[in-house]
């Protein structure tokens, strides 16, 4: 599975009906996917979805035709040299990929990271980087 980030700008969605239509269009393509995160911002709706890797290009095409911005999602990595185990990033991470070990040292479990990038600007040591 591949995690992608899609952004539906405000100008496309006037009401929830428009949003439903977009989802229906995708469903018609017979692709099932998991929505990992759904958030609304003043700029529009952001979805982080997990799609079957072989369908990524098909889904990208479909979204782009609608004017939706699609980004392939990366993950992050933590530079241990810079990290001071403060914990500032932990409460932000929705999946527990960033967490404390028993001795209260920071541990990053890459497999759990969905690339939502919420943590990216929270680190006071700039130790978290997009990969």
């Amino acid at each position, binding site marked *: 599975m591949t995690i992608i980030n899609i952004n539906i700008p405000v100008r496309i969605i006037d009401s929830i009906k428009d949003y439903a239509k977009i989802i229906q269009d995708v469903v018609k393509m017979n692709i099932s996917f998991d929505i990992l995160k759904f958030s609304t911002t003043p700029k529009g709706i952001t979805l982080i979805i997990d799609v079957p890797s072989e369908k990524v290009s098909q889904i990208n095409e479909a979204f782009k035709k609608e004017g939706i911005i699609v980004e392939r999602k990366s993950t992050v990595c933590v530079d241990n040299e810079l990290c001071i*185990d403060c914990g*500032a990033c932990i409460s*932000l991470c929705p999946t527990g990929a960033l967490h404390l070990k028993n001795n*209260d040292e920071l541990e990053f479990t890459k497999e759990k990271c969905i690339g939502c990038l919420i943590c990216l600007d*929270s680190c006071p040591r700039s130790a978290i980087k997009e990969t």
Partner: protein
Amino acid sequence: MTKTYEEINKKIENGEAVVVTAEEMINIVEQKGIKVAAEEIDVVTTGTFGAMCSSGAFLNFGDSDPPIKFEHLWLNGVHAYHGNAAVDCYIGVTRMNDKSPFEYGGGHVIEDLVSEKPIHLRGTSYTTDCYPKEEVDTYITLDDLNQAILCNPRNAYQRYNCAVNSSNRTLYTYMGKLLPNFGNATFSGAGCLNPLCNDPDYETIGIGTRIFLGGGIGYVIGEGTQHNPTKRLGSLFVKGNLKQMSANYLKGVNFEKYGTSIYIGLGIPIPILNENMARKTSIKDEDIKTEIVDYGIPRRKKPVLKEVNYKELKSGTIEIKGKKVKVSSLSSLFMARKIANELKIWIEKGKFFLNPPAERLPRETVFKPMKEVKTQKFVKDIKKQAIICHLNDSINNVARKIIEENENHVAIIDDDGILKGIVTSFDITRAIAENKKVLSEIITKKVITTTDDEPIDIAARKMRVNNINGLPVIDKYMRVIGLITSEELLLK
């Protein structure tokens, strides 16, 4: 049973002192009781490692030839304070680099100095008969300085707030990134390892107390600024020689959209002089309480949601309004423990001795808010009447109102008077250009609003961050009761 400082120091000298960390002391007292613990344990070590925004360093460069009297000076592009003698300066940790603010600041300069990195020193002068040199542009290292004194007027807070955000947007604060609608919570402080929590009546920690500071030796030189003992929010004024310190315990930091600071490691040994001190140093996380405070309200008096203790905070989740919220610390517990252990080893090895304070810290003072001569103005003091149109009005109607009333912003309401959107003259122009006919097609539905009792500075910041010129004033039912625009703010 009582012990004296001399007796404890004698034991340290002979390598016989029994030293434990404040975390270890909890178990010892639980298992052996206070009486035995007081007899067996000589010293309890504490530690903390967190943001210390009040910090800075006094540096002396020595004279140039011909001599210069700095008027302005920068270290790696960070403006230092130079209102003292010719070649002295104070570099504050929250001062940011002129060219890359929010990335590099005074805290990073101090970390780089201690890491023995060369620091770019640039300074200018208006020149005098005794100091004729106009400009200096050179590189210095810590070794080249005569003195480098780390100085923290407010350090080692006894405890701190736990921060949450009730507002509907992400906030970037000195308490870190706070997600909207109570999306997360942050706290600061090491709980049972915190120095002042283990000596809450300042019986052994006072002026002159020798401490672990930034990996070297430092001293408490007084109570910290904002020291607030009656609320159990004591703080310490400390200093230490930067030349002995280690970059492992001094870390420059940058909080997104807030600014730069420094994390400093500080540890204080507490002599177990009697059973009283044995009892106090066995304090547990659950006995240390603090408050969950809503940073969504940017006022001095932020609403307190509830009380919480450090055991709950360290557990990783707290409950707010029936919802489980992830909580994490901003200060490092791992480092705090490491510092308490390091100090323990120093004492065990006979490298660090304890001393009684020359004077005790104040126990009665209170912390006052700023005296402001101008009274704070609120939105209701400067708002004007809003121009209002109905959702069903035609675009023409709205356009006419804009011209008649000479007002750029029109609030759009429904039958119940509830705010549904806003239209500006720009929206009307665009509607004409794009040949739009229906009002609902052109209104901005997500409106940033204000209320009567919001201070005008907060309303002004809302306009600035959102890049807009007007805010409808609404009551608690979302009914429009006025308008303020940048014009009113200019005339205030």
